[in-house]
């Protein structure tokens, strides 16, 4: 699938290729600068961060003081925990419900299927941002403001994922299931032991995207939490930013700590993420 290297008969170091390489290196460097500079700032003393901001060799030297401070004084560990709990719950519920529903749409002929399917397709264009007011009123009525479930439930389903999974299930040969059904296996049994094992790559891709989306979501958790102990990482960080004010090193240390988990996720699941985007075009933001 991936074309590597130059074409045969072509000079690998032609002038135009070197020029292209230089342009690419320049652009990539530009893209990496905000990261690099933030990491550098986070490793400076607060005095250096505010005074010798451009210096690569700060007078006070490099230290982890900002990280120690943020981790001991701030709420970052508990926000990270809240983010982890809610994102994992959102991912598990979304993947489970989407897979079950996707299977029903793909393989079962049930009454009401057509209108339910039409409703899901129509719902895909409703931006969740527009539902914040009625959703918040609902959460008040259900007593779910400032609870984990209040953060989780409105994010724990994804019409687009149902369609993606349905499309995938459609491609699994029917014969595989029929053999198991002839042997007397129930629908659920067939789904669990025949269909799901064949769908591992797409389930992984869906799970990764749901997780990243949930981990990074700002607007909904921001609206549904007021208690600082229940905030997710992105929401909590927004309060840190205003509270620390001029403490640039601590600001950057918090940002780097918040970014780290997803960098790790990416390094582990690079191939699934890239393939997921390439083949299905889903993502979010």
């Amino acid at each position, binding site marked *: 699938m991936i074309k590597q290297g130059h074409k045969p008969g072509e000079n690998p170091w032609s002038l135009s*290729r070197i020029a292209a390489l230089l342009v*690419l290196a320049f652009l990539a460097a530009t893209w990496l600068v905000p990261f690099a500079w933030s990491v550098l700032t986070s490793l400076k003393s607060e005095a250096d961060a505010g005074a010798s901001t451009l210096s690569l060799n700060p007078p006070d030297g490099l230290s982890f003081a900002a990280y120690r401070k943020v981790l001991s004084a701030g709420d970052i560990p508990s926000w990270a925990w809240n983010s982890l709990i809610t994102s994992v719950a959102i991912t598990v519920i979304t993947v489970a419900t989407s897979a079950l529903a996707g299977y029903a749409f793909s393989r*079962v002929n049930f009454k009401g299927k057509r209108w339910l399917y039409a409703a899901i397709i129509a719902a895909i*264009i409703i931006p969740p941002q527009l539902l914040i*007011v*009625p*959703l918040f*009123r609902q959460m008040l009525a259900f007593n779910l403001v400032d609870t984990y479930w209040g953060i989780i439930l409105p994010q724990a389903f994804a*019409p687009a994922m149902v369609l993606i999974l349905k499309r995938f299930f459609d491609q699994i040969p029917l014969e595989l299931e029929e053999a198991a059904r002839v042997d007397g296996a129930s629908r659920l049994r067939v789904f669990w032991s025949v269909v799901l094992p064949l769908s591992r790559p797409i389930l992984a891709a869906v799970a990764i995207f749901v997780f990243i989306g949930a981990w990074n979501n700002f607007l909904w958790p921001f609206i549904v939490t007021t208690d600082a102990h229940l905030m997710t990482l992105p929401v909590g960080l927004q309060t840190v*930013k205003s509270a620390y004010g001029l403490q640039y090193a601590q600001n950057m240390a918090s940002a780097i700590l918040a970014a780290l988990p997803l960098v790790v996720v990416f390094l582990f699941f690079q191939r699934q993420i890239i393939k997921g985007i390439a083949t299905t075009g889903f993502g979010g933001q």
Partner: protein
Amino acid sequence: MRKRDETLAGWAFATPFAVLFVLFLVVPAVYGLYLSFTGETLTGAGSGLIGFANYGEALTDPDMWKSLGNTLWFTVLSTIPLVVLSLALALLVNLGLPGRWLWRLSFFMPYLLASTVVVMFWSWMYNPTLGLINGVLAKFGAAPVAWLQDPKVAMLSVVITTLWWTIGFNFLLYLAALQNIPEQQFEAAAIDGAGKWRQLFSIVIPQLTPTTMLILTLQILASLKVFDQIYMLTNGGPAGKTRSIVQYIYESGFTGYRFGYSSAISYLFFALIVVVSLAQYKLINRRSAA
């Protein structure tokens, strides 16, 4: 009997999803529509139907039009580079130059960050006295720029941050599409004497049309819904110059406590999104029919 079993099984599978879908999407959508016809506020005062009053007010509200205008302007400013530059990056990376994983990582990494983190990085970059950008400008003797405070450049700054943050997604879509163009087409074109640039414009770009359409559709809808980075970078300022329509919905609901009014603006905006989606759908269908 058999048919009833199928229906039972189908609903058993679909119910967990359907319950969440109805409870947290259909119900709020209908409830929001109802709210938009009421004068509902925080205290519950003014509840009860008031007809189209909220819609009438919204359509004559200069702040609504201003934030809508900002949103459309942001969409134009962000969509063009997010399509053109991501294509350019994908073409460059697809030349097969060494270091492929590094390029991919550099352009895609920011896409994984939470908006809060992105904004923390960029507020620091844009800092008027200590920021890296003004620091570098100063080395070249240029005057400092108030990136987020100057009404003339604030929107541009927001666009630059958005470009940095989100380009990786489009870039990966283009890269995947490029790799699916059969190699023989280039060989055939080369034999016919077509140069590199000729190949680019007569083979590559036409072949990428479906991808470009997909990216354009997703990008326009995503840009219209912009909120996070603007809200946190500029809070809609200076003087409302960057306030987006989603921020206006949020503010009228959660700081102005006018739930009915906020819902009415939501529905007007939703109507716009439906129109844009239908227009895009028509356009794509016409293109593929032609």
